């Protein structure tokens, strides 16, 4: 009737016995660890399921996602986030690479104007001020805009640092070194508090944009160093070959150096953008109501007072989820790019 193959179970049992319970000392250690792990697990699950009051999360879900965006317009940021998500899925499981490379990059870049249009409104949509933006939407907006702005800026800085003109080379090194010596929070303070003082009267930059610029200034210094590493690992013979084909300096940079440097720097660049995503939470201190800021404002509500753990566990999960998506996407991209280049 039923034939259950118990052989693998026996083998793994024997293995366990051999590795974990081979002598008295090992047995005691193993038992201690098992007890510790079970107690932790039981307590955690008990808290998660019975003790924690998830009302603070469930009843505020739109708040976490969109901040104080007007409720009847919340489909707009929702559309944007869904389009980002579906583009990610499409990138991972979509058609073959050659076609992707040509069109997908344009689609990804296109998500920025799409997001800004959906959030700001105008042309058929009612305009919404940036102070109503918030939650996960704002966090993602800060990350995406700053990453895409700091990449070209970082490339230019890296190229300047390699320049043969001493003035340009010195200036960019000074900039990079200075930015790396200042803590991010100081740069963000500078962006929020000092930039308005420097600007002439009447010109005002949005708080969100001030934050994006501050992040861009900071991250591009790090990106420049990553790309410089990539540039330096390209053998000089590549430049000689390009020279002998009559390509000029700019063409060599554009067609030979940058594409190769970006591929080499890709893992480091992924790291930067994941770091950037997490660092956007610093803006909560500076008054932007992004994901962490929403959490703090909810905790300030008398109805939910004291429910720190629930809120922060929930926020950690959201951050973890988004970062995982980013990491998976980046790994996919890396694999795709290295398929054709087993050796340099």
């Amino acid at each position, binding site marked *: 009737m039923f034939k259950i193959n118990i052989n693998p179970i026996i083998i793994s049992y024997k293995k366990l016995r051999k590795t974990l319970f081979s002598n008295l000392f090992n047995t005691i250690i193993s038992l201690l660890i098992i007890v510790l792990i079970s107690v932790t697990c039981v307590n955690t699950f008990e808290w998660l399921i019975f003790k924690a009051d998830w009302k603070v999360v469930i009843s505020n879900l739109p708040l976490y996602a969109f901040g104080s965006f007007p409720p009847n317009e919340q489909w707009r940021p929702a559309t944007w986030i869904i389009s980002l998500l579906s583009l990610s899925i499409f990138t991972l499981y979509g058609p073959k690479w050659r076609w992707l490379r040509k069109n997908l990059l344009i689609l990804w870049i296109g998500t920025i104007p799409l997001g800004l249009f959906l959030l700001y409104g105008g042309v058929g949509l009612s305009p919404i001020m940036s102070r109503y933006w918030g939650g996960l939407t704002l966090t993602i907006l800060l990350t995406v805009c700053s990453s895409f702005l700091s990449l070209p800026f970082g490339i230019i800085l890296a190229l300047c640092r390699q320049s043969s003109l001493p003035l340009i080379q010195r200036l960019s090194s000074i900039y990079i070194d200075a930015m790396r010596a200042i803590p991010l929070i100081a740069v963000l303070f500078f962006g929020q508090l000092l930039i308005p003082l420097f600007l002439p009267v009447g010109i005002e930059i949005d708080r969100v944009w001030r934050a994006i610029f501050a992040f861009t200034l900071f991250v591009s210094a790090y990106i420049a160093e990553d790309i410089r590493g990539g540039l330096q690992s390209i053998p000089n013979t590549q430049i*000689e070959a390009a020279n*002998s*084909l*009559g*390509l*000029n300096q700019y*063409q060599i940079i554009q*067609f030979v150096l940058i*594409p190769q440097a970006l591929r080499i720097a890709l893992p480091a660049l992924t790291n930067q953008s994941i770091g950037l995503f997490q660092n956007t939470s610093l803006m909560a201190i500076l008054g932007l109501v992004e994901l962490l800021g929403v959490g703090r404002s909810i905790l300030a509500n008398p109805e939910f007072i004291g429910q720190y753990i629930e809120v922060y566990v929930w926020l950690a999960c959201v951050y973890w989820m988004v970062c995982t998506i980013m990491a998976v996407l980046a790994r996919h991209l890396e694999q795709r790019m290295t398929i*054709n280049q087993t050796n340099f």
Partner: protein
Amino acid sequence: MDPIVVAKNLTKSYTKGLRALDNVSLTVDQGKVLVVMGPSGSGKSTLIRTFNGLETFDKGELNILGIKVDSTHDERKIQKIRRRVGMVFQQFNLFPHLSILENITLAPVHVQKRRQIEAEKYGMYLLNQMGIDSHAKKYPSQLSGGEQQRVAIARALALKPELLLFDEPTSALDPERINEVLDAMRNLAEQGMTMVVVTHEIGFAKDVSDQVLFMDSGKVIETSPPNIFFSNARHERSRKFLNQLDTY
């Protein structure tokens, strides 16, 4: 008909007083093949790399395809020369991030401003000539050394050069892969391509070259037609070198 390459008293010295090139003079006529031989460190590579401006020199004068270059290394003139002179390297130096066909069409499209379709068509024709058109969509790392070197030759030919420089094109290849590259070079010579080839391949030099130039420590020891050079070299130094090559 003016000669394609005229070098007069080329001299290049390094800081320690070591001379990479010492009063080198030579002429290469249209449709001729010059083979440059010599022990390693004799300045052969340095010599042909001055022809397309990859290497500067301190004294002397160079006239490539009627464009005169001197020790000032005028960037614009060199750029002009590079558009008309192709070069093939020892280590192939293909662009690893581009497919074979993209490697070949890069310069025609961006330097000569030819249309992509036209450049691809000509690129496929060249790959066909080299017998590797089936690899057009692959990447350099997927090809063997001999195939990569033939791609490199096709890449140099894509600009329709009037002079081809070969810097030890077979030195980095497995012995069984050398002939496929040499055969491709033979075909080019038969089609009347003007070539300067740095190589140790005696067979190739005997069959294909019109002149053999022998260098040692930056000096030209002798320039002879191959039948004389290989049977009855005029200089003791050349004979010694050839003997060593034979025993090797």
